[in-house]
C-alpha cells in the first residue's frame, strides 16, 4: 500500500504543482497567446453581427427582453466568462489512462487529487488574468458602451457563482476522463458534454431567448448558473434571490460531482492494469 502524505504536506505541494503547470502552459508562447488569450473570442464577435442583422431585419426594439445593446453586453460578458470555464482540453487524464501512464501517480506519496486541484488553480489563475485583460482592454478602448457590473454586490455574487461553476465543470471533465478506465476512448463523450453544456449554459444564445419550459429545465443544471445566470447578474437582470437559488444548485451539484469523481477514480483504478489499451 502506498504511503500517503498528511493533508498539510499535500497542501504545501500545491504551489509547486501550480508553478510546474504554469511553466508547461507557457512553454510555447504563441500557443499560449492563441490557447489562453484569444480562446472563445470569435464566436461572440460573429454572434454580434448576427444580432445586428436580426434587429435590422425585424425592426424590433427588443428580442426576448433584450435590446441590441444589452445583447452585445451579454456577448462581452460571456466571452470573458467562457475564458474561465474549463473545456475538454483542460485535462489529459483519459489519454494517460489509454497509454497506461497513470502508474506514476499511484506511486507518488501524495494523492492524485493534489495534482488535479493544482492544475485547476493554475488554470483558474491564468484564465482569470486573461478574462480581466480582455475586459480591461475593452473598458479602456470603448468605455462608453463596454459593460460594467451592475453593482459591487452583483460582482461578488457573479464571482461566487463562477468559482463554484468552474469547479463543477472541472469535476465533470475529470469524471468523463475517468470513464476511459472502462471505455478506453472518451474523446467524443467530452465533446458531447461540451456541445450540450454550451447550449444549456447560454454560451451559444441567451437562455432568456429560449422557450419558458426549456429555461425551467436549464435552471436546474450547473452550466446555466455558471454562465447565463452569472452574466445576467452582472447585467442586473437577476437579483440576490436568484443568486441564492443558483448557489443552492451549484453547491448540490458540486457535492454530487465530488462524490462521483472519487468513486470513478477509485473504481477505475481497480480496473487499471498499467499497460494501456
Amino acid at each position: 500500500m502506498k504511503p500517503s502524505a498528511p493533508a498539510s504536506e499535500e497542501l504545501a505541494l500545491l504551489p509547486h504543482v501550480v508553478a510546474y503547470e504554469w511553466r508547461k502552459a507557457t512553454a510555447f508562447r504563441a500557443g499560449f497567446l492563441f490557447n489562453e488569450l484569444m480562446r472563445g473570442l470569435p464566436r461572440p464577435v460573429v454572434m454580434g453581427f448576427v444580432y445586428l442583422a436580426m434587429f435590422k431585419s425585424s425592426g424590433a426594439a427588443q428580442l426576448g427582453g433584450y435590446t441590441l445593446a444589452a445583447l452585445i453586453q451579454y456577448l462581452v460578458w460571456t466571452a470573458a466568462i467562457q475564458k474561465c470555464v474549463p473545456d475538454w482540453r483542460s485535462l489529459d487524464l483519459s489519454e494517460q489512462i489509454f497509454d497506461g501512464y497513470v502508474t506514476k501517480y499511484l506511486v507518488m506519496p501524495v494523492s492524485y487529487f493534489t495534482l488535479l486541484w493544482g492544475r485547476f488553480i493554475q488554470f483558474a489563475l491564468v484564465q482569470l488574468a486573461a478574462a480581466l485583460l480582455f475586459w480591461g482592454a475593452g473598458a479602456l478602448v470603448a468605455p462608453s458602451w463596454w459593460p460594467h457590473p451592475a453593482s459591487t454586490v452583483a460582482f461578488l455574487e457573479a464571482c461566487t457563482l463562477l468559482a463554484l461553476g468552474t469547479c463543477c465543470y472541472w469535476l465533470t471533465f475529470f469524471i468523463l476522463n475517468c470513464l476511459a478506465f472502462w471505455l478506453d476512448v472518451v474523446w467524443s463523450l467530452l465533446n458531447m458534454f461540451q456541445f450540450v453544456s454550451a447550449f444549456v449554459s447560454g454560451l451559444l444564445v441567451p437562455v432568456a431567448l429560449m422557450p419558458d419550459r426549456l429555461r425551467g429545465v436549464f435552471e436546474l443544471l450547473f452550466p446555466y448558473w455558471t454562465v447565463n445566470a452569472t452574466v445576467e447578474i452582472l447585467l442586473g437582470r437577476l437579483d440576490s434571490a436568484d443568486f441564492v437559488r443558483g448557489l443552492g444548485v451549484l453547491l448540490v451539484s458540486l457535492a454530487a460531482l465530488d462524490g462521483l469523481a472519487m468513486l470513478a477514480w477509485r473504481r477505475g483504478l481497480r480496473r487499471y492494469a498499467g499497460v494501456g489499451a
Partner: protein
Amino acid sequence: MRGADSLVQHLRIAWQYARIGVIRKSQFKVEFWSQVLMDCCWYGAHVAVFEVLYSHVTDIAGWNREQFRVLLAFLFVSDAFMMIWLGRMWRFWRDVKDGRLDPFRVRPASTLFLYGFQEFSVEGCVNMAIALAYLTYAVARASVHVTVARVAMTLVAILLSWWVRTLILTLYAIVDLWMVGSDAGRFLQEMLHATADRPADVFGARLRTFLLYVIPVGALTQVPAALVLGRYGWGGGLLAVGWLVALGLAVFAAWNASFRRYESAMG
C-alpha cells in the same frame, strides 16, 4: 505517373485506408456510437440555436428559416465529410510539433493525401447519412422547384462543400507548418466553426467577400446553399465554383511548398 494512373493509385490507397478504418473501429464499439451521438448533439445544438433565433425574427440578413436550414445542412454535410476522411487533420498541429510526419514523405502518393485521408471513420458515414437526410428535408422545405438540373446542382453543391472543407483544413495546416507549436491552426478552427454556421451576408460587403472567396469559411455553407436555392445566376455560380476550385488547387500547391519546411523534430 500519368493522371489516370495517379488517380487509380490514390483510390487504391483510399480503399486501404477505409478497410483499416473499419478494422480499427471494430475495436472501440462504444466510441463508435458515442461519436455518432456526439455529432447528433452537435447538429442538435446548431439547429436549436437558430430555431430559437428564428422564433423571434422571420429573416436574418436576407435568409429566412427554410433557407437557413439548407445552409446549416451544408455545414453538416461538409462536417460529416471531414469526420469520414479528414479526422487526422485535427491533430496536424500536434503531429508537426512531434515530428510524426516522416512516413508520409515516402511519397507513393501525394503527402497531403496520404496524411490527411489516413483515418477513415465508419461513424462519419452514419453521420453523413443523417446530414444528407437533413439536407433533403431542408431543400424540400425551402420549396425549391425540383428539376433534374436542381438535383444536379445539389450534387455539385455537396461536392463543393467537401472541396471547400478540404481547402480550409489545408489552409490552416499551412499556418501550423509556419508557426510550429503555436496552436494557430486550432484557433482558426474555432474561427471556422464560429463563422461557417451562419450566412456571410450578416457581415459588411468587404468582410463578406473576404470570408466567401479568400479564407473562405463562408463558402463552406453559403455558396453551396446559394447554388441550390438559386440565389446565384448561372454565370455567377460558375464563377464562384471556378474560383473556389482554383483557390483550392493553389492552396494545395502552397501546402506542398510549405511542407518543405518540415523537419523530423520541430517542436
